[in-house]
Every structure is written in C-alpha cells, then in structure tokens.
C-alpha cells in the first residue's frame, strides 16, 4: 500500500493552485483532508503525479451563517460542522448527517469540499446537499461559476467540475423544515448500505414541501423529485408514504456488493426512507 511517486505542491493562494492545475492538467489533483484520495493513491487506483495541498490556501475555510443561507468553505472539516452551534440551529441536518460519517479521526481531517467533490457514490454529503438544494461554487481559469448540487453528479467519480477547477464553497438555503438523515451501515466507519436525507415543511398538518435524496444506491446520489412530490399536499398517511417509497425505488439503481444483493438493498432503502420520513415529519 505504497503510492507511486508524486510531486507535492503547497501553494498559499488560489492563483497558485490554478497555476499548477493549468500546467499539469489532469496529472494534478488537489488534496483536502486526504481521507478519500490518499487511500486511492496507496492502492494505486489513483495516480497523481502532482498533488496540490489546499491546507495553506487562504479563504477556503469557515462557516458563515447569513440570513436565508449558509456558506460553508470547502476546507471546513466534518468535525467543524458538528461543533458549530450556529449551524446546528439553522441547519441541524448537517450535524445529524456528519455524525454518521466515518469516525472521529476521519472527521477531524475530512472536509465538506472533499466529500462533495470526490464523486464517490458512498459519500454522504452529496445526497444531503441535493436534498437541501445546495449550490457549489467553482473557481477555474475562467473565473467563478455556480452549479446546483442536483446538477453536479454525472457518474461514479464523474462530476460537472472540470479538471482545472476548484470547489471553493457550498451555499445552502436555510430551510426551517423537519429533517432526518437516516443511514444503515454495517459498522462504524462504513459507507451506507442505504441512507436517506429528508426535509419536510408542514403547514396546518399538511406537508407543503418535501425533499428526498438517497445515498449509495446508484452510481450517483439520487434526488428523487417524485418521492418528495408524493408527500406534498398530504398529511403523510400510509398511502402517501407508500407512494413516496415506490417513487424512490423507481429512481434508485443499486448494485450488489458485500453489503448484500440488490433485492436487499432496495428493501433496506425503503425501510430507511420510511424511518427518515417519519422522523422528519415528527420534527416538521
């Protein structure tokens, strides 16, 4: 488990990062917390001749709670998400989800930017960001652009981000909704067998808005628009929840692995979603 040789770069500003990316193209990659990238390099599944450490780059950290939205710098660690009291007030689902990622040691290092940019279908933050309708800010040679989380993921490890772009922050609209992040895993530090992110806004006992996204049940996170829509306008009676679950099952496409066969994963996805909906509704 020894990586191939690589050149280590440690720029202090974004211009420096972009310069290395421009010079080496897809031979260069940025390093955030390293807890996805370094294992891949050690397994020699990722060859990265030029590694650009983002640690010293200014302006990539910080959690900024504003009216109506939250800005989270790409280099914010999962631990910082968990520990930020203001964030827990306005967007508590982030903490609930982050606490189910890996273990404390990984969370001290792993970053929000790395988790969403990585493109691994097992990562928990991408589905969560889709559920919350977050926007990613990317900086590249041609300047800054924004992409919706719901439009960002193309296939496993394939995203809308160009090789010479850096993800700088995540912007999440404040939602004030009932929420739940429910995850089934085999053990601590495991990726999901099935996970569901759910937010529900209720008014007078009726669901007026709902958003549902699933993790590790396809080669990308799955925001199931139809599942959310099935809940809107109902008081979450059994028929509505059944409709949401079957809509979700129509959108996911799990594969068999050591966690189990497809049939089991679909069953688990349904159970997990039901639990997430129930919890989110109880908080709505």
């Amino acid at each position, binding site marked *: 488990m*020894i990586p*191939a040789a690589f050149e280590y770069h440690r720029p202090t500003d974004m211009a420096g990062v972009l310069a290395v990316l421009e010079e080496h193209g897809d031979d260069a990659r940025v390093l955030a917390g390293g807890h996805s990238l370094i294992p891949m390099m050690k397994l*020699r599944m990722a060859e990265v001749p030029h590694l650009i450490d983002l640690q010293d780059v200014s302006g990539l950290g910080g959690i900024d709670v504003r009216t109506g939205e939250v800005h989270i710098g790409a280099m914010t660690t999962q631990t910082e998400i968990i520990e930020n009291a203001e964030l827990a007030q306005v967007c508590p689902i982030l903490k609930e989800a982050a606490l189910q990622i890996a273990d404390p040691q990984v969370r001290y290092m792993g970053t929000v930017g790395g988790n969403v940019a990585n493109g691994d279908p097992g990562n928990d933050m991408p589905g969560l960001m889709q559920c919350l309708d977050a926007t990613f800010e990317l900086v590249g040679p041609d300047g800054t652009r924004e992409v919706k989380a719901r439009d960002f993921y193309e296939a496993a490890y394939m995203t809308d981000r160009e090789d010479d772009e850096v993800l700088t922050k995540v912007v999440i609209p404040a939602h004030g909704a009932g929420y739940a992040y429910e995850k089934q895993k085999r053990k601590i530090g*495991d990726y999901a067998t099935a996970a569901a992110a759910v937010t529900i806004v209720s008014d007078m006992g009726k669901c007026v808005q709902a958003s549902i996204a699933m993790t590790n049940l396809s080669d990308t996170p799955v925001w199931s628009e139809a599942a959310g829509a099935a809940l809107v306008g109902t008081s979450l009676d059994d028929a509505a929840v059944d409709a949401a679950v079957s809509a979700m099952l129509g959108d996911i496409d799990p594969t068999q692995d050591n966690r189990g066969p497809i049939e*089991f994963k679909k069953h688990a996805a349904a*159970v997990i979603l039901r639990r997430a909906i129930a919890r989110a509704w109880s908080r709505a």
Partner: protein
Amino acid sequence: MKDEVTTREDRVEALGGMGCKRKRVEDARFTQGKGNYVDDLKLPGMLFGDFVRSPYAHARIKSINIDKAMAVDGVVAVLTAADLEPLGLHWMPTLAGDKQMVLADGKVLFQGQEVAYVVAKDRYAAADGVELVEVEYEELEVLTDPFAALESDVVLREDLQGDGNGLPDGAHGPRKHHNHIFYWEAGDKEATEQVLEEAEVVAEETVYYHRTHPCPLETCGCVASMDKVNGKLTLWGTFQAPHAIRTVVSLISGIEEHNIRVISPDIGGGFGNKVGAYPGYVCSVVASIVTGVPVKWIEDRMENLMTTAFARDYWMDGKISATKDGKITGLWCHTTADHGGFDACADPTKFPAGFMNICTGSYDIPVAYLGVDGVYTNKAPGGVSYRCSFRVTEAVYFIERMIEVLAIKLNMDASELRKINFIKKEQFPYKAALGWEYDSGDYHTAWDKAMKAVDYDGLRAEQAQRVEDFKAGKTRKLMGIGLTHFTEIVGAGPVKNCDILGLGMFDSCEIRIHPTGSAIARLGTISQGQGHATTFAQILATEIGLPADSITIEEGDTDTAPYGLGTYGSRSTPVAGAATAMAGRKIRAKAQMIAAYLLEVHDDDVEFDVDRFVVKGAREKFKTMKEIAFAAYNQAIPGIEPGLEAVSYYDPPNMTYPFGAYVCVMDIDVDTGVTDIRRFYALDDCGTRINPMIIEGQVHGGLTEALAVALGQEIAYDEMGNVKTGTLMDFFLPTAWEVPNYETDYTVTPSPHHPIGAKGVGESPHVGGVPCFSNAVNDAFRAFGLTHTHMPHDHWRIWKTANELGLHG
C-alpha cells in the same frame, strides 16, 4: 532486614503473587507508543523486500521479465523461483507435512500468491519495482468449492501426482482423489451408525463454519540479517513460536542451529496468524545472504488478509440421536475441510484436523464418530487456530449448534436438553467417546449459576411475549437468547502424542535469582498481548517468595530462552506456566537447604511461608528469600553449589479442559437485519485464577473477536477465486462502537494434574462466544420455523433468513 511487624496478609500482598489483580507491566510501554515491534527495527544499510503477487487464483506462469523492475532507481535484486531453485529453497515444508511454494514455481494456486520478491533500498522503490515486474499468466480453471474440487478433473497440485503409478500417499495416508489431502477419523463409525439407525430421534444438519482470518493489528513481518564474517544469521520477526522457526530455518537452509538466532520482539497480536512459516521469511533470509546486508519484509493489511494463514472453512455434516425424552445416544460428524492450495495448517503432527475430536463437547455421549476429509482448492493456505486451540472452535460451534437443532427436533428447551446431557461432576476424569480424557469439570454448577444470573425463565417469558407482539404487528423486532456451554481442550501437549515437525510440545522455564533477591525468568513461549510478563511473575512470586515486581520475565530470544514450542492454543499457562512453577519449586528446594544451614537446623525442620523459610514450631526464627538469595552467593555452604538457578522442561501429563457457560440476549430488526446485543453474560472456569484482571481482559477480547466472526467477519471469494474482503472496509473488525457491555463471572475447578491447577483462558471466550452469538440469531427465528442458518450473520443474511421465513409480508 527482619520485618516482624508486618502481618502474614501484608506479606502476601507485598508479593503481588497469584490471585491478585496486578496491573500489566507491559502497558506502560504499549500505552505510550513505546513498544518495540519488528517494524521499529532499523539497521544500518537495511534493504526492503516486497512481493509481486498473483492476480489470478489459478494460472500457469509463462514468463517473468524483471528488466524494467531492475531499472528502477533503488531496486537491488528481484528473486524468482529460478533463483531459489539452486538453493533448494523454491519450496518449503509446511507444518502439516505438505510443502508450499516460496515463489511461484511454474504456476500459482491462489490469488495473492508470491511470484517474485523485489529487494530495494527503501519501501517506495520496492513497491515501484513490484509494479514493473512483467508476469505473463495463462489462466486455468479455478476451484473454490471443496466439494467440486473432489469431483474435478483439474489437478491443482501437479507436484503430488507421482510417476503415473497411482496417486502417492500424502503426509496423513492415502488420498482418494488428486485434490484430496487426507482422511482422518476418530471414534467408532459402525457403532455410531448403528445407534443412529435404531434411535428414537435423530436430528441432522449441515453446519458451515466460514473462512475467516485472525487479522492481528500488527501484520506479519521480519528482518533477516546474515553476518557473513561470523556466519551468524539473526532473524527478528512476528513469530509465535521462535524456537520452532529457528529449527525450521536450520533444516531448510542448512545453517547450523547454533548459528541462527531468532528474536520475537513485541508482537501486536497473533491469534494463530503468526505460528506458521511464510515465504516472506525465506525470501528475506535468502536476500540477506545474497546481499550481505539486513533485509526487512513487512506485510500490508491486504497481504495479511489475503495470503497469510486464514482460519476455519469447515463444512460439518452432523447427525445427533437421542431418546424421546432427550438423552443423547450418539453423534456423527463428517467434515470437509477446505485447506486452500497448500496444506499449511498448524496442528500437532498426528492431528491433521486438530482437536476437532473434542466435538462431543460438554455432553455424556456414549458413542461417536468423526471423519474429516482435507481438500485442496484455489484459496490461500493456512487453517490456523484463530484464538482457539487446534480446531476447537469448529468443534464447539458444531456441537453447540447440533444441541440447538436437536432441541428443536425434540421440541424441548435448549437449556433443559443441555442439563440432561452434561457430563456429571462425579464422572471426571471422563473418557470421551472420541478419545480424550477430560481432567475435571463441574458443568451443572456453572450452568445453574449462569441461568440464575440472567433469569433465564424470565428471558424466555419475555421472548414468548415478543413473539406474540410481533405476530400482532406491535413490533418488528425479535428477541434471541443464545446459549452455549463449551468445553475446551488446551495446553498441547503431552509429548507422547503431540509434536510439531517432530518437536515435542513441552515447554520450559529457566530462572536465575540475583544475589540481592530479584530474578529473571526466561520461557520458551512469547506473549503477543496476553500479559506473560505480568502473570508468569505472579506465579513465580507465589512459588519462590520474591515480589513479582522484582522478577523480570523474558521471552522470544532463542539465544537466551530455553527451548519451547511457543504461544498459541492457550498453551502458555498450561505448559510454560507449569514449567515456571516447577522451576520455582526447584529454586525453593535449594533455598530450603540454604535456609536450614543458615538457621542451623535440619532441612526438614524448616518450612516455606509466603516469602521465607521458618523453623517449624519456632516461626520467629526464619530467613527471608531475599536473605537466602544473598547467602547463595556469599556463603560457602558444605555440599551445596553456589548460586540459585533452575530450569524446568515440562511435559504435561494431559491437556487441560477449561469450560464455561455463556448467554447472549439479542434484539433483531427483521426489516434491516440489524442486530443489537442487549446482554452478554460469560462465566468462565479456567481453574486456578492467576490474575482476575487479565482474565477479564482476555474474555473481553475473545468475546469481541467472537462477535466479529459470528456477525460478519469473513474471507469471501467469488467464483474466480478473487478475495472479496481483502480490506478493513469489508473485513469486519469491531470497534468499541459495535461491542456490547460484557458481564463476566466464574467458577473455579482446578486442573488436578497441573502444578497450580490453572487451565488457560485466552481462547475460551472466542470458542464459547462464536456459538453463543450465532445461537442467539438462530434462536430469534425458532418460533417461525428456522432450524439453522449459516454464519456470518451480517445484515443481509439475517434479512434473507427473515425474508425466506415470510416475515416481510
């Protein structure tokens, strides 16, 4: 230094001897990161070795090209079988009487098999070199199923085909098929089958104990250093049996044994994985001889899981017969044992299936039969005892599942069935139907204590209510009550029937008392986390009356330690612990003569009292052991040699038979297959208890490894022979998060033949824990018609069981 003021209890306490919760002396360094493991060793000029491994499970090697690898900056040499062949080292003997390729000789038999060994100036260059060795393979048909292997025309081991005049015998007699290794049996087949035929009730089940791996935190590794000037080879490594390794190295290399020094430094867990000899050791030795500088080899985690000794992989077909009211009349077992590409099991020579013939368990079974067929497949070699004495965990899992299956057949409570059939206290020593003589036991007392502690009847009532609630749609969780009463057989073993490679399985201790009353004791064993430096000093403190804190325990250096067979199979306390006590008694015998001389009385007129010899009838006249020690070095005592030293080689008269009663209470979510262990009660009887705190630690660790195996830990292969669980992402290693609170308890039934009555405990919790967790899962579904489902009970397999029983609507 007379100390009349202190009471006898004070003096006992000051010794820190047997029975006290002495803190582990090892922990000061382990908890501060100050341990000294083989990978901590850095020698001047040291090179690093790394393996090119086969991506295929079965393939012929057409060619190996090392040119590009040799061109890597820092690569010094690349060894292949062709380089080892002139030295006769391209194959090596295994502990099971088979031989194993050191580097692929024309073909490979399992994924990850060693093909070439790259030696370089550092690990990085070695890994780069490994990438660039070009190997051309021709894929062959892969056999991963032992039953299919016994039917197949595909010959896995062409080297064992002989000269065409029939299939030559293997190390354990005739072979039935070219992929067959041995057939071994115990008991009386005919009589057993007769009993089964005529029995009122017979329960049958096939019980598969899946392949798993001991996965110690520290992987295997070594540093070989050949000093060409004085001809001495020093080999540091993760060896559970350093002396045996020295003998093996001598036999296969031709280097005389006195010129080989094997050192096991601190070892980060072994659990059987570090008993055998691996190609990495041989290649490192050869590389050091060739280059004249030290060579280090350290496995990474994937290599450890995929290639060094696995455990289990036993298919056990069982039949158990009984009367209608539950008295067991016979037990029949046929096992198909998947040994992988080479037979590298670590068992005593005469026991190719280990002590699997302890599979009559804790029960008085009049007649029994066990037959075992060993089979070659395209999987990694090994078959070690993962935290158990030789195949004992398989045996106990088998009988404890069969008891449950029989209870279902009889529609009887599984605790009741056990009680009816336990060997009774007065039957010990008990001669079991498959040959062993159990030295001691009191099963009913232990069992009753356990049932009472957990309120067994209350649990069953709660479970019945839960089933009602489930059927009424009030809950989706079932409750399982896992029961196990295990009997282990440890402390291998009597030289008359136990040897490894012809080396009798005695063990040893050598003691030197220093003039000022402190001591060093050296043993033939080697701790891998068991706390020998703590407990062996306690045994000695009690035996020789010097404080445990004044006794250094040293193990693992073959130049200084007396010959011993090492640490595995819970043998250290039963065998080396006995040697320690016996050597201590020799010290005491001489001390008695010295004391008598100093006190000017006859030898028989003094007696030992905690830390001193006192004059009988005049206890105020005494000499402390400290005073005696000094006298041994400064007095000219007529008829007595100066000094105070002793050595003992202990050949145990019998094995010891620890036992225990375990109960697991588990809730199971039938929709997700997620288990929640609500309670785990473990009563262990390991005879005399040397250090209750260390026992408790061993029980916690063993139970945790049992939980791992029962609930998810496996080495799984696909049909192509690819390892599917080669990293810790998929290979289940529990953390504090998955582990329940354990309640420990004990009874004490000393071993009648062991000098201090101790029996060994390191493996009991694993042996007893695995069936207990598994029985809990099975038991949860008993009310819905389940008889048996195979481990590992991970989420999806439990879900599948529930699904097949129609519990998902």
